[in-house]
């Protein structure tokens, strides 16, 4: 994971129109952001398209990035996620079903996907706080976050009433906030 200072500097150069900086930024961050898009959209062609749109958008809006407000990786992840979710909200879209194993792996207490969170400085605390959640809360949160499922889709996927899912998500988020500050 590249240090935030380096990414900040590259975004600054992008805002001055230096395409080389965007190329370096892409080399350092695209594998991470592609993974995010691929997981939400579940189709490689869409994920590739969205990734292209996002780096063009990062290039155009680099001047608006404010390092005092957010980490560079957070800022770029937001751009990618929002674009993916916008695409999922298009009408009549045939989206492949989510990967059951991945979602299930968040429900139990085995290290699973949390192991990777622990290896990164920026997410180690988050991993610790996620451990404090009930398994079903963690799973509902993971389905919404990674697979881009709405409340009602999470409800379908876990065969639960939507009210139950909403309260799992709400309590899970409250607990995370309490833990993370």
């Amino acid at each position, binding site marked *: *994971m590249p240090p935030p200072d380096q990414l900040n500097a590259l975004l600054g150069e992008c*805002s*001055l*129109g*230096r*395409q080389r900086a*965007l*190329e370096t930024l*892409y080399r350092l961050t*695209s*594998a*991470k952001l*592609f*993974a*995010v898009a*691929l*997981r*939400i959209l579940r189709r490689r062609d869409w*994920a*590739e398209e969205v*990734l*292209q749109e996002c*780096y*063009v958008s990062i*290039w*155009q809006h680099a*001047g*608006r990035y404010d390092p005092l*407000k*957010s*980490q560079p*990786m*957070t800022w770029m*992840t*937001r751009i990618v*996620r929002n674009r993916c*979710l916008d695409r*999922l*909200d298009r009408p009549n879209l045939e989206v492949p079903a989510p990967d059951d194993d991945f979602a299930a792996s968040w429900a139990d207490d085995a290290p699973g*996907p*949390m192991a*990777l*969170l622990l290896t*990164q400085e*920026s*997410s180690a605390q*988050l991993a610790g706080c996620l451990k404090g959640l009930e398994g079903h809360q963690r799973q509902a*949160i993971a389905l*919404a*976050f*990674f697979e881009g499922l*709405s*409340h009602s889709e*999470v409800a379908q996927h876990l065969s639960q009433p939507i009210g139950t899912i909403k309260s799992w*998500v*709400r309590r899970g*988020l409250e607990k*995370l*906030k309490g833990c*993370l500050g």
Partner: protein
Amino acid sequence: MRTFNPQLRDRLAGQYVLGSLRGPARRRFEKLMHADANLRRAVTGWEARLLPLANALPEVAPPPRVWRGIADRLRAREPVPTWSWRGLVLWRTLAGGFAAMLLAGVVIYPVLVQRGAEAQYLAVLQDPQAQIALLASATRDGRLKIKPLNDLRQVSAQKALELWALPDGGKPRSLGLIAPDGKTVIELKTQAGLIPALAVSLEPPGGSPTGQPTGPVLYSGKMLSI
């Protein structure tokens, strides 16, 4: 405008960032967010908390065609924003020229005539997506008025919008800072007819420290004689 109590605001912001708030509810939330700084703050807080979750995904390298596609799009869209003024203006003229002329003829000209202004020149400034952002008009003796169509305070944020005259072949010349949310009147030191095009760049508060544009060019447009 609907406002939320702090608990509800925070809960919705969390769901928005998580991604579980979707469809029309998500779009409504985004609209409210634009108008509500507290809501934006709540969202920024949740982004800092939740987006590092993305670290749980193993990296997947995109195929090389993705970068090639990005490089192609940058070339097609906007040759290097800061230094390639002529290319930029040419591109804009080709892409948006027709729309701009149409707009100038149908919409703006009658408005100006009606107000009795003796405007002789018009410029329609567009962003790289060819969305019209500002209208400028100038009289022959060099009084230039420029006005954003929408409130650009979101765009300028803590920075300044600086207006530039783009001469053929020469360096851009600063015409001063413009208001992001209302009309600005500028006395030109030359005849408006000698300015082929205008551009607006994003600069540090107070304007470019170098006398040349240092930030991205947000809008530009050709000066049209009417």
